[in-house]
């Protein structure tokens, strides 16, 4: 029993056929690494020297048993990566727990407007309602205005990024000549590379003034935030949708061409339907990007948290889930921080969920397409 476990561990660390003496050197490295991790947890002061010893042992092992050492180091990197990812997730949930426990359903309080709970997608019968929905001093927090602001901004962004992004993907994968593609594709990539704070700065200085003049608004508005976020989400939609269109087997469009269809007919009736789930994955990912966008929204919408009345008023403004964290964290009290963690977990769950769904779709498609080839 014990020997079986030892053999398993040995194989996991050393691979299938280790050379002689590898166990000693590699084992020393493993021990030192475990020692480092223990030191970090128990006596952080000694972590650095032990880590240095690990590095020295590894360097020695690298010269004597390179293959085994390399395998060990990549294994260590994998374990650390997986641990980091898991740890961040767990820690976030743990940090959000106190606020869940303290506030419960009150985190979803609906504002009372004109003496009645505001209509909120038929949820107003289920959720509590109150006059004040965000007042850190009184310990009153409701995420409803933040969630709704996120929904409006994401909707406007999706309306822009969705159709334009799909058209852009069609252009790159089907319409453009090679030379044109060489220009447009990096152009869109660079659009993705412009830092969000630059978008935010432009929105804050230029566009908020524009909307005051042209749309009689008082400055901050969902419309501008949505527009800007839409432009920022555009490259994501383009690149993922383009991948989906490119993975449609050539034989399908060749068949259409053989039937005498024009390129547009082929695109409309063959490529796009065949890639439709990939395109929806692209839009889901784009929406995820829009939901998670922080700095542009924070700069444009400002720090106010307030209900949107009426719900569809796109000239109103309130912090979104992300921008509330950005604006409030530094100056927040402990209880506010806990609530911000709830917002963070909400974002994490929604966006990671969207990513998982779109990956599932993509994987299914690639299996399907391979089946057809």
């Amino acid at each position, binding site marked *: 029993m014990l020997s079986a476990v030892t053999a398993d561990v040995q194989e996991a660390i050393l*691979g299938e056929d280790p050379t002689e003496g590898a166990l000693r050197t590699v084992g020393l490295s493993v021990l030192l690494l475990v020692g480092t991790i223990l030191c970090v947890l128990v*006596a952080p*002061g*000694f972590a*650095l020297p032990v880590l240095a010893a690990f590095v020295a042992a590894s360097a020695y092992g690298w010269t004597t048993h*390179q*293959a085994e050492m*390399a*395998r060990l180091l*990549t*294994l*260590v*990197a*994998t374990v*650390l*990566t*997986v641990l980091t*990812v898991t740890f*961040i997730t767990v820690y*976030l949930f743990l*940090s959000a727990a106190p606020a869940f426990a303290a506030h419960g359903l009150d985190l979803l309080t609906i504002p009372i407007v004109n003496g009645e709970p505001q209509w909120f997608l038929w949820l107003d019968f289920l959720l509590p309602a109150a006059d004040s929905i965000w007042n850190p001093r009184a310990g009153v927090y409701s995420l409803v205005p933040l969630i709704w602001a996120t929904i409006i901004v994401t909707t406007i962004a999706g309306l822009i990024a969705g159709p*334009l992004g799909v058209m*852009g993907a*069609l*252009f*790159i994968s089907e*319409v453009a000549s090679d030379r044109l593609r060489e220009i447009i594709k990096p152009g869109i*990539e*660079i*659009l993705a*590379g*412009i*830092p969000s*704070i*630059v978008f935010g*700065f432009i929105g*804050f200085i*230029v566009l908020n003034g524009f909307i005051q003049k*042209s*749309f*009689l608004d*008082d400055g901050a508005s969902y419309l501008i935030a949505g527009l800007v976020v839409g432009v920022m989400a555009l490259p994501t939609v383009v690149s993922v949708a383009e991948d989906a269109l490119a993975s449609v087997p050539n034989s399908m469009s060749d068949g259409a061409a053989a039937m005498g269809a*024009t390129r*547009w*007919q082929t*695109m409309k009736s063959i490529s796009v339907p065949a890639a439709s789930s990939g395109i929806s994955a692209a839009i889901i*990912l784009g929406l995820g990007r829009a939901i*998670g966008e922080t*700095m542009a929204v924070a*700069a444009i919408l400002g720090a106010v948290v307030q209900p949107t009345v*009426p719900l569809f*008023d*796109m*000239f109103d403004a309130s912090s979104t889930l992300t921008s509330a964290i*950005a604006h409030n964290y*530094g100056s927040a009290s402990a209880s506010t921080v806990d609530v911000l963690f709830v917002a963070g977990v909400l974002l*994490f769950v929604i*966006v*990671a969920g969207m990513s998982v769904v779109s*990956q599932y779709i993509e994987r299914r498609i690639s299996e399907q397409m391979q089946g057809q080839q």
Partner: protein
Amino acid sequence: MSEGYARENELVSVESNVYDRAMDVGIALSIVTFVVGMLTFADAVPLGATGTELINFFGLLLAATAGGVGIVAVFSYANVVPVTSQRVRGVAFGLLVGLVGLTVAAVALPVSLATMLGLILLVEAGLLAAGGVASRLELVDTDPSRTAGLLAGLAFGVIGAITGAVIVGSLPGVPSAVVGVPLWLLGAVALGVGFGALTIGPREDLGSTLPPALILGVFGATIATAAIGVGWQWAPENLSGGFTGGSIIPLFVLFGSLLTSWSAAKCRADFGARGRQYGAFFVINLNAFLMVAVMVAIVTYVTVKGVSWAFHGFTIGALSLLVVLTPPLVLTIQYARAPAGTDEWHTAARQFFRVIPLAAVGSLATLLLGIFVTGTTFEVPYQYAILVDRSTVMLDTAVSVTPSLQVGNLLVIVSGALLFTYFLRRYGSLRDVGTEYEQLSSVRQGLPAAIGLLGLLSLVYIGIGPVLDGLPIGIGVATLGAVAVAALALAPLGPLVTGEGSLADRAHRNSQLLNVGLLGGVALLTAVVVFEWTAVSNPRLGPVAPVGVVAVIAALASTCAAGLASRARRATDDTLRHRILGDQVTLGLAAAAGYLTLIGLHVAATSEVPFVLGPIEIGIQGSLSWPAVLQGAIPLGEAPGGIYPAIVGTIWIVIGASLFAVPLGLGAAVFLTEYAEQGRFTEVVETATNALWSTPSIVFGLFGAAFLIPRLGDNLSLLAAQLTLSFMLLPLVVITSREAIKSVPDEYRDASAALGVDKWKTIRSVVIPAAMPGVVTGVILGVGRIAGETAPLILVLGSEINATNAIDVLGGFAFTTSPPFVTNDALLTSSAALPTQVWAIITAGVSGSASKGWATAFMLLVVVLSFYAVGITARTYFRRKINYE
């Protein structure tokens, strides 16, 4: 009918007729209105413009278009960019005709721009309707389908419904509801169904022209009759905002021009399947160009806004600028020399384009030479805005190039190192060429020993300080080394100049001398300079510093050798010898660049006095003064100082994040792809990393602030920022590296295994080199993204607005006797960074200087986009290389 391509010397093909021309004009008009709509939206031209202002505006548009069309036409005529599509030619022709017409109309009609736009929409409506009707009456030969299709019907139904709702809803004096049904709903249904029917019902030529014509007519009439004029306003009660003529008219125009372009493009291609394709492609193309236009507009706007502050007080000596300019000059020379290839371009034109960059850089270099010959300062004065007590003040400043001959060592080192690497990469090898002398081979063997000895001595100096302080060992060794280098570098010249046979013969025979003399000299001198640095000595014999002087002499000798070899090369016809001599030329140039770099390093190492050579002075302090980039903020000063601390902060953040994330991610990718069994585990890890990559960055900031900061000294810190961003970078490195490793064909691994190579050696020498391009590109793009990341930083690093001092990470390291033995206080303090500084300016409100914000945003863009430029160029380069192999 008009499908074929035009012949090259005709504007448009003979077969195309008036109908086609009219539709081309329609498309061109829609493009013009789209552009004008955009311009009015951005307030570049007021909607109320009349008279001279309007004429000037259209005249300007006409001039710009005529210039653009003209240049393309000239290129097309010269066969540089052959434009054969007669549709493109037709649209270009239509653009000119349309703009001439508009300019004439602006002169003839006393109307405002808004009215004019309304009239244009009406004209477009007329064109579309006429086109549709002409096709229906079979006056022209077209090929329409039976119906415009359900999709178009649906689209126009929706447009009609919205129009109906708005028209009925905004009509004054009508009851808001009839028998409980809101009237706007009735209007919407009526117009929606009507438009849908009008689109689907009749034959395609009418179905796809009449509805857009109607909509355009309504829009045009509303604007032209000033029912919605410039001053018009409508603020619905329950919205916080409203609509003005200033926003609605451009929206109408933009939407109308999109409709026109689609419909006219359909008409132009004679309806039917081909017409639909043309219409759809036109819109798709327009969309793609719009996206790139948005990108270009953003980058240009930030540049224009930020550049004045970012370059205030920028001064540089002409020689410094020349040093900076040398690598591009060499590159452009190489570009101009590149062989012609087999492009379809006209040869003369191709030569022209190869020479243009060289001419540009060359003329700049000549200008600089002129500056220090004449001794006058070249100056571009301008004003920039700063914020004093919350009010904007304009300051006078200038960008200037002075005739100074002073150069900073850093410029010399960077330029020289670039050139050295460039030439050395082009240099093949002269190892087995020419005669082998006995003394030479002993020198060749002795060199590594000498260099090793110097290295050892350097280590001794670092470890225990200067040994035998009384004796001038440092100076002696350095001088001896310098003399040896001089001998090495000058050795090849003698046999080259004198001796038997032709110059080419001698050069060929003495290849070994060149090889050992020049390359060995560079290597030995490098060791000497490193030794100088450890010995903290600047050996001087009287007034001269031997190391520097030897470097200059050696550089001259190398240049001479290169020149001689080049002359010999000209005289030979033999291919092999041609190549050998070519290698000697690049070797000579590489050595010259290397020696010049060493002068800079020598100055940096001794750091006492500038190195003077005639009028030229290479010192620690150069003649480059760039306050915006090289200074911290100056509180209460006359000038505002700069953003140096933020730049340094950003650089350290990027370095720290990459140091942590790249090795870890790469290792994980290798294990997951090569060692681990592909199955559930790898799939889960892949899904998790992908999910983590798309997680909002602010969530990482939350984690960093709540977990890292309490464990790292409990204050905002650079280390926390580096770690937080590295957690963001980690998934990306894993994803891109995995993809790159996966894309290495299995044949490579199989071939390696078949040769009996074990797994790790296969990975090290086959898989990783093949995957490297993908990994490098992915990592560069990821790092670019990290450099601009803001949200997590404001939680873990804070946001400083006017940092005066840059963080000193290297100087912050300190050794202690108690654990953890190494500390770095600098890493545990907060720092400014470019993105957080922009955020600080936003949150500062009125006390944030917008001009400084633009300059910071501009610098941030420069940093991030250079990462992107490098990444994208690398990818294109590797892809080409793979494709050609």
